[in-house]
């Protein structure tokens, strides 16, 4: 087993400083993907019995370009969000980075390894969750899987016990991990899967839809845990998800992939400011007011207690709206929210 790099207080502090100041680019590179292509050849067949019989003799082959010239860099200690519609190539890209897929051309360098060539050696340094695919033994309690992983990754007993205790408390799986896995719900299993991917304290973690089937409270626990691991050990994460709250809570930088190509690679904030043309203003009224009337504002709801407005930023600034509001209304509470990022992504997909 490769030695686990110990971080001194100083390097941790530097890391936190650089992350806080968006200096990620100056950090060492954890992943470098260059001009990656993957072409699959599958045969397609129509529905129905006749077509099934036909396909025995005549096979129509179809080439699928799952990845077309993908280049990407991820710095150490970064949490990268990889998003895109179904079939965009996210999972193919993750598989190539995990070493379980031989690309057609191009190169990948993860932690100094070419993943698919030195797979067994390389994967000792990574953790991975593949959506609902179970990492656990179906008929045994999850705790047995954890114990096996300790032996597999050769983690000292005491150290492992500490980590396990922490992970069990943070994810709230103390009871869950003692029941046979077959009796668990998908969400409970997902939490145990995450524990599997992180128990050996890997430097690099790939999470392909880690919050699928997980309830809101548990989702929150999972996110907090990911953030804490990232902060404490400088662990690099690559996360794909269809839950934009995950992205908003975890990632500073996102990569949007569609039809095998990267269509956006940059800060989440930037994409928001580029595509966010509206904001929502919610006001709790202390006393009923007159009708809200201001150019560039669309009143979605107004009654004696509440007021909701969509502000079109092209026509009016936030300041003037707030000024107008305070001049004419008695507000008990004001919140301004961005449109959900789903809307933004939809906007980009449409292009």
């Amino acid at each position, binding site marked *: 087993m490769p030695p686990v790099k110990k971080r001194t207080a100083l390097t941790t502090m530097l890391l936190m400083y650089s992350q806080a100041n968006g200096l990620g680019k100056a950090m060492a590179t954890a992943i470098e993907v260059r001009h990656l292509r993957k072409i699959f050849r599958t045969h397609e067949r129509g529905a129905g019995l006749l077509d099934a019989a036909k396909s025995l003799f005549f096979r129509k082959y179809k080439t699928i370009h799952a990845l077309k010239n993908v280049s990407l860099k991820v710095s150490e200690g970064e949490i990268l969000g990889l998003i895109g519609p179904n079939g965009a190539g996210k999972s193919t890209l993750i*598989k190539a980075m995990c070493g*379980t*897929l*031989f690309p057609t051309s191009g190169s990948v360098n993860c932690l100094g390894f070419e993943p698919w060539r030195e797979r*067994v050696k390389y994967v000792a340094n990574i953790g991975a969750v593949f959506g609902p*695919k179970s990492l656990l*033994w179906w008929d*045994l309690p999850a705790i*047995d899987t954890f114990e096996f992983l300790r*032996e597999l990754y050769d983690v000292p007993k005491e150290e492992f016990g500490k980590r396990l205790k922490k992970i069990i408390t943070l994810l709230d799986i103390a009871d869950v991990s003692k029941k046979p896995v077959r009796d668990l719900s998908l969400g409970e299993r997902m939490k145990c899967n995450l524990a599997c991917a992180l128990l050996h304290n890997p430097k690099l973690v790939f999470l392909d839809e880690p919050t699928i089937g997980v309830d809101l409270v548990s989702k929150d626990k999972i996110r907090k845990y990911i953030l804490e691991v990232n902060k404490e050990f400088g662990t690099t994460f690559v996360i794909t998800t269809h839950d934009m709250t995950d992205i908003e809570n975890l990632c500073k930088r996102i990569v949007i992939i569609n039809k095998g190509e990267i269509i956006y690679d940059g800060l989440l904030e930037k994409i928001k400011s580029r595509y966010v043309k509206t904001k929502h203003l919610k006001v709790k009224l202390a006393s009923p007011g007159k009708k809200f009337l201001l150019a560039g504002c669309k009143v979605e709801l107004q009654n004696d207690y509440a007021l909701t407005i969509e502000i079109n930023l092209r026509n009016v600034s936030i300041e003037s709206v707030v000024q107008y509001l305070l001049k004419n209304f008695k507000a008990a509470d004001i919140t301004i929210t961005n449109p959900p990022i789903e809307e933004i992504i939809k906007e980009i997909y449409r292009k």
Partner: protein
Amino acid sequence: MSFEFGAMKLGIKEALAWKFSLMLWIVISIVSIGAYYLLWSAIYGLSGQSLIAGYSFRELMTYFVMSEIVQTLTWNNVIMDLSQKIRRGSLITQLVRPVEFLHFDFWQHIGNRVMQFWIYCAPMVLVGVLLFGLKFTGWANLLLFTITAVLAVVLNFVLSALVGLGAFWMTEYHGIRWVYMGFHSIFSGFVFPLTFFPQFWQKIFSFLPFQYTIFVPIQTYAGKYGLLSVLGNMLIQLAWIIVLMIAITLIWRRAMKQFSAAGG
């Protein structure tokens, strides 16, 4: 050894989780040996001979009891397991662990067989003695049998693993598995002793690995071989294991190149 031990422990725990169905194998064995008992007592009775192909009735029944025991000991689920993991794409969860899947699976399987030995074989010996007149052939034979049976467990594992690798190229693998199991049960001597076949066929079987998984261990227990040929057989078992392991390593490498997990 910490990892191998860990994998074995998983196998043991899993076998304990399935202990009831593992115990049910005893019932299946009793039924199938019982059927043989009725069939062959009729054959011996009708032929009026006390020896058929060199076997007395009691020796033949000992063969059948031992064949059930050895078959259960050497049985494995590698072909089905591999083909399912490949078809459903869940093999990928094994590929991100720092150990080759078959290496891990072997040790887990050994753990499972250790439990199976206690859950199935030990009671089965008792059943064999009480119901079917299983003969004890001496401590020396038992010792030699134990060694060759352990080699048979390993040999049958690598044999199945090699066949299972075909699932990387054929998604629907159930048919292949059934055909293989059919051939295996005859060529290995599971259904009846290979000495029942004509000389020509026996010669062919000796060039194949199958008889070393069931027939040879049983004959060793029955004391049909001299010490020299027992040792010779063990060397052949070892040679097959090594040859098949090399083949597996080469094919596994090719399989990894074209493997792309389904789904997701």
